């Protein structure tokens, strides 16, 4: 129990003194996870919406696969991305292993199915409401997807925040493809793993509290910016 108090004190000290290393790894955590979120959303939102409005032969199979991929073990994704990006792998010439770019790629793979599944669920219900209207207006597929995405933006935000939550707290994959290099690929979660390994639990826990606070701040910021939970607007 003492160690938890020591961790809280350490977290407070780190934030209060604006520790340069802490700011560095916090910004990198944000950079990696937000980049992954933007790319994953750009892929998942249109794809999941398209899946909601299109009927085709193997639709059920595709949706089941997408849902199953939500449970992708990050450490396996990390290992596969590692082998692909290694110098002996097919994309070795790009020299991306042990860079933030490799970490972003791994996180995109991990969170895209999650965002897509939640989006698809929301869009399917929205589509049953909008179905007759959009078809009677003789809209194109592109217009239908755009309308659904815009009108379902609250649900999509939940999907995106779930993806962000999984990305920012993830350690298995980015440890393997990033390598936890100081000032290059060290982020909050890998730093916590490192400090735990050194037996410095107070610092590890301090970083943990910073990570939780960061996650809260991002969620609050997005909610504030998109003005949810306000009378007349939600």
């Amino acid at each position, binding site marked *: 129990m003492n160690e938890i108090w020591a961790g809280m004190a350490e977290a407070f000290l780190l934030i209060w003194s604006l520790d340069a290393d802490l700011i560095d790894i916090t910004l990198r955590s944000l950079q990696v996870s937000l980049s992954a979120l933007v790319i994953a959303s750009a892929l998942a939102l249109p794809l999941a919406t398209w899946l909601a409005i299109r009927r085709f032969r193997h639709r059920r199979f595709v949706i089941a696969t997408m849902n199953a991929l939500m449970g992708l073990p990050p450490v396996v994704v990390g290992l596969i991305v590692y082998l692909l990006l290694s110098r002996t792998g097919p994309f070795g010439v790009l020299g991306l292993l042990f860079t933030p770019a490799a970490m972003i790629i791994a996180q995109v793979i991990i969170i895209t199915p999650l965002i897509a599944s939640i989006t698809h669920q929301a869009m399917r219900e929205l589509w049953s409401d909008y179905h007759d209207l959009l078809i009677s207006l003789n809209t194109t597929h592109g217009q239908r997807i755009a309308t659904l995405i815009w009108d379902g933006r609250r649900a999509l935000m939940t999907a995106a925040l779930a993806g962000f939550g999984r990305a920012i707290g993830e350690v298995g994959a980015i440890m393997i493809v990033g390598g936890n290099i100081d000032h290059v690929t060290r982020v909050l979660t890998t730093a916590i793993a490192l400090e735990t390994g050194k037996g410095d*639990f107070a610092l590890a826990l301090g970083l943990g509290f910073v990570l939780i606070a960061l996650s809260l701040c991002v969620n609050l910021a997005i909610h504030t910016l998109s003005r949810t939970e306000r009378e007349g607007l939600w």
Partner: protein
Amino acid sequence: MIRAILITLTVAGTAASAETLRLAATTSFNNSGLSDVLLPAIAQDIGLDVQLLVVGTGQATRLGQSGDVDAIFVHSKSAELAFVAAGYGSHRREIMYNDFVLIGPSGDPAQVRAATSAIEALQSIASAQATFVSRGDDSGTHRKEMALWATADHDPADFAAWYREVGAGMGASLNSASAMNAYILADRASWLNFGNKGDHSLLFAGDPALFNQYSYLPVNPERHAHVKAQAAQALGNWLVSPRAERIINGYEIGGEALFVFNARP
């Protein structure tokens, strides 16, 4: 769209690689805190930004084989010689040494303190069936432990539940040993710099069999043309320089020197 993403990724990936070198180093090099004093000195003297990948010796040699790092810094002589013999490393340079120590609960249920050799110490642990934590991660420390068990005529595969392979780095394994009240083989530097000693103490050391040599091996540019051979050469020259000698010999924790420089220039 996809091309734009790829370009962004490539730019982001290469932007940070001005004059940098990737070094895969054993966990003890980092857990001991030595890297925290050596790397700034290297940056200051030869302007080289060393990016440290902290892994076990087994993984370090794998990274070197596939050309994902420019050089490795490890401690397992047989693996190093094989690495050079197979042409993955251009040469091997001995830099410094310390020693392995046996750590255990201060109460010492297996009477390791009374042992006269490392082999005897391990044998008394085995006959007392005292809980023992093994790294189990194919690191230099793990290989040393395996070699010691083999010399003591024991095969860890036959041990009962008192022998626990945790499959983790030095620090994490020390944490486990501390929590399980277990014996463990560690390198002296990691032990001295470890923050969660609890009721554990150093019980046995000083047997020549526990000698622990660290070496530097640049990855062979003939096998991987993209490695930064010049930077790796510069770092190798710096590591055997008098300045490196002063820093390595002068690195102390609690008044105790951790490493002894033994490179021949």
